[in-house]
């Protein structure tokens, strides 16, 4: 892929979004248009992964102005990996939304497309302020999607979500101001190592990292996530879980590597905070009683794991963190979608109102359990490799406590996964409170039978795709490990990146 | 329309801002005096004033001119029959306010009507009944 074409990955979904706003198209066409840009991005990012697998990078100064003046778009292995995973998730979640009919809500298509454009831009940009803008591009559709789909609580959640994110975006912007005030520039290439040298820049970057930590829902600023994600529709939750917090995490990795140059002075803060995040998240999950709220708290816990990687800032730690990140995005979305299929079919995600689904939906059960075991870090799924490398990374870096917490937390993770499993898939089916499907009438129509709804196969496909992905990443871990190692190497030694940004 | 009436009309247009400035000045001084001196001579009232204005533009201009003059304020307006309800800070009597508004109206209509202005209703009254009230 020619590096000048990188901006097209942003422009393409935007123009399709514009088109969808503008015109009324037949359903099949608008659905195709909704899926097409992320499919294209998936293909393109596969090509990018191939091009960057040796640690080289693609960079392009948008509009071809001078270096340091133009907004640079850069793709290295890390961003290509993220592009690949996010576009896969957009594709799969949008497909799920289509399967459940979410896409018929007003402007669903344009909103998802803009969201994906924002994500893509945020992953590629090498400019702090442009990063802010793309984060906003990604957030605005999210504000709407969260508040327009889902349960009764969605409006309250919408309020929390928008205010919290606005606050953190504003804090981010303040950080950008401080960095610019101290360092003369917002170009990441020019900022390379600046925070390690200047305490003024470090303070500004600290503010930015703080904002990103809130956006990635690290403890103690995690509550908003637990409170908001469960109330929208499952497809949207899956989408958000795969994109929003993860872009923030990506940015933390990138910024800490480039601007702080991995400065070891502050790493201990990260180790403490992210260890707490692991613990608090998982305990929260154990205490919840609906599928999605459990999964959402897990997400917080796993965010702790992922960020621990950057807080270790060793080759192994970074590699483990990046591997974990990719694994988590896929598995989490898979879980949201498989439980989402249940929610859509049975009208609830409450553990005490579901049961015995494993027997009726064996495939669904298989998908769920595969992802659940992966999440808990059990072999042979991707989660195992992720946990193993991360724990090894933590021990290697001498962070015993964090390592032990990481290990212990996975037991609680399993515990809460089993809570879902026991409440939803095993156990007794609850008595239906009302006819769940139109009664089957026979002959004279005197007898009516309550038919329990069955999850439509089309709702299962997205989950199957993702579960298969986590299994293949687990079994063929070497490919992703290779890529993660390359990405980690680029974070440890940022000279190539800096050169690319300024080139 | 005669040349004379057109000249009067053009003069009317030119005169209007001058008159407005004058009215503004007088009104401001009066209200300013009220504000700056102790005690109060305020005797407000809401007065219904029938107008000779015909178009929306005229009514609107009229209402605005009244409002622009410190001490009086258009509270409500009606299109047909053209009427404004004016809040006046110094309302000695109903008719004084009406006369005051009609004076403004004269100046406005001189600017908006090349064909010349119709007589005031109170003057019409006199003509019909043959005597001044």
């Amino acid at each position, binding site marked *: 892929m020619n590096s000048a074409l990188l901006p097209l990955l942003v422009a393409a979904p935007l123009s399709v979004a514009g088109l969808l706003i503008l015109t009324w198209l037949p359903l099949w066409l608008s659905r195709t248009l909704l899926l097409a840009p992320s499919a294209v991005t998936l293909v393109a990012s596969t090509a990018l992964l191939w091009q960057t697998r040796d640690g080289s990078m693609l960079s392009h100064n948008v509009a071809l102005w001078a270096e340091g003046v133009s907004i640079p778009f850069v793709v290295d292995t890390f961003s290509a990996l993220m592009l690949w995973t996010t576009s896969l998730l957009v594709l799969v979640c949008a497909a799920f939304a289509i399967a459940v009919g979410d896409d018929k809500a007003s402007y669903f298509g344009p909103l998802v497309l803009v969201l994906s454009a924002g994500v893509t831009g945020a992953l590629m940009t090498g400019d702090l302020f442009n990063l802010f*803008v793309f984060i906003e591009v990604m957030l*605005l559709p999210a504000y709407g999607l969260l508040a327009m789909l889902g349960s009764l609580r969605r409006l*309250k959640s919408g309020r929390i979500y928008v*205010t919290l994110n606005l606050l953190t975006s*504003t804090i981010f*912007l303040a950080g*950008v*101001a401080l960095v610019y005030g101290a360092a003369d520039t917002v170009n990441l290439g020019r900022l390379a190592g600046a925070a390690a040298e200047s305490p003024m820049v470090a303070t500004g970057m600290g503010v930015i990292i703080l904002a990103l930590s809130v956006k990635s829902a690290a403890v103690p600023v995690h509550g908003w996530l637990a409170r908001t994600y469960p109330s929208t529709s499952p497809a949207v939750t899956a989408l958000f879980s795969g994109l929003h917090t993860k872009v923030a995490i990506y940015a933390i990795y990138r910024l800490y590597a480039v601007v702080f140059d991995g400065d070891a002075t502050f790493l201990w803060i990260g180790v403490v905070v992210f260890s707490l995040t692991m613990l608090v998240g998982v305990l929260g999950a154990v205490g919840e009683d609906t599928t999605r709220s459990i999964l959402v708290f897990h997400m917080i816990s796993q965010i702790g794991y992922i960020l621990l990687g950057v807080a270790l800032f060793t080759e192994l730690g970074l590699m483990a963190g990046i591997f974990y990140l990719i694994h988590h995005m896929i598995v989490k979305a898979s879980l949201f979608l498989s439980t989402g299929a249940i929610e859509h079919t049975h009208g609830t995600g409450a553990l005490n109102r579901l049961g015995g689904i494993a027997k009726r939906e064996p495939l669904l059960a298989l998908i769920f359990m595969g992802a659940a075991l992966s999440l808990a870090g059990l072999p042979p799924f991707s989660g195992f490799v992720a946990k193993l490398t991360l724990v090894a990374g933590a021990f290697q870096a001498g962070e015993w406590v964090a390592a032990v917490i990481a290990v212990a937390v996975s037991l609680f993770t399993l515990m809460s996964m089993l809570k879902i499993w026991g409440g939803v898939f095993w156990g007794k089916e609850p008595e239906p409170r009302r006819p769940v499907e139109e009664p089957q009438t026979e002959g004279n129509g005197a007898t009516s039978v309550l038919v329990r709804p069955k999850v439509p196969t089309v709702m299962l496909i997205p989950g199957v795709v993702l579960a298969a992905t986590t299994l293949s990443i687990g079994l063929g871990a070497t490919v992703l490990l290779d890529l993660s190692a390359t990405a980690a190497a680029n974070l440890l030694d940022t000279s190539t990146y800096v050169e690319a940004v300024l080139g | 329309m005669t040349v004379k009436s057109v000249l009067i009309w053009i003069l009317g247009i030119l005169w209007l801002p001058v008159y407005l400035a004058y009215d503004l000045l007088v009104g401001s001084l009066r209200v300013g005096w009220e504000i700056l001196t102790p005690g109060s001579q305020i005797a407000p009232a809401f007065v219904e004033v029938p107008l000779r204005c015909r178009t929306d533009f005229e009514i609107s201009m009229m209402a605005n001119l009244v409002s622009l003059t410190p001490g009086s304020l258009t509270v409500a307006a009606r299109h047909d029959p053209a009427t404004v309800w004016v809040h006046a800070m110094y309302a000695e009597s109903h008719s004084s306010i009406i006369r005051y508004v009609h004076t403004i109206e004269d100046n406005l209509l001189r600017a908006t009507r090349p064909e010349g202005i119709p007589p005031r209703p109170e003057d019409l009254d006199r003509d019909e009944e043959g005597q001044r009230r």
Partner: protein
Amino acid sequence: MTLAITIGVLVFGAVFLMLQRGLVRIILGFVMLGHAVNLMLMSAGGTFRRAQPLLGYTSADTASDPLPQAFVLTAIVIAFSITIYMLTLAATGTDDDTEDAS
């Protein structure tokens, strides 16, 4: 100094309002916070050169830093977008109350 004080004052008001009950006050707080941060961006550009960066009127040696101005312009519009959306949210549901009646 003066700009810093203004920023501090605005942030005080913003945070105070944001921590109140009721979405409208929170929104108003955010509007103020936006102002504060925009001023901070301006402050980051430096306040010692205050001439407009319009080269038809000012020479390039005295004009103020245009980059923060562009940032602020962008930030203002983004904040405006979110503000009107939040205002919409305040007019949905049952009320703009954000807390359970106590």
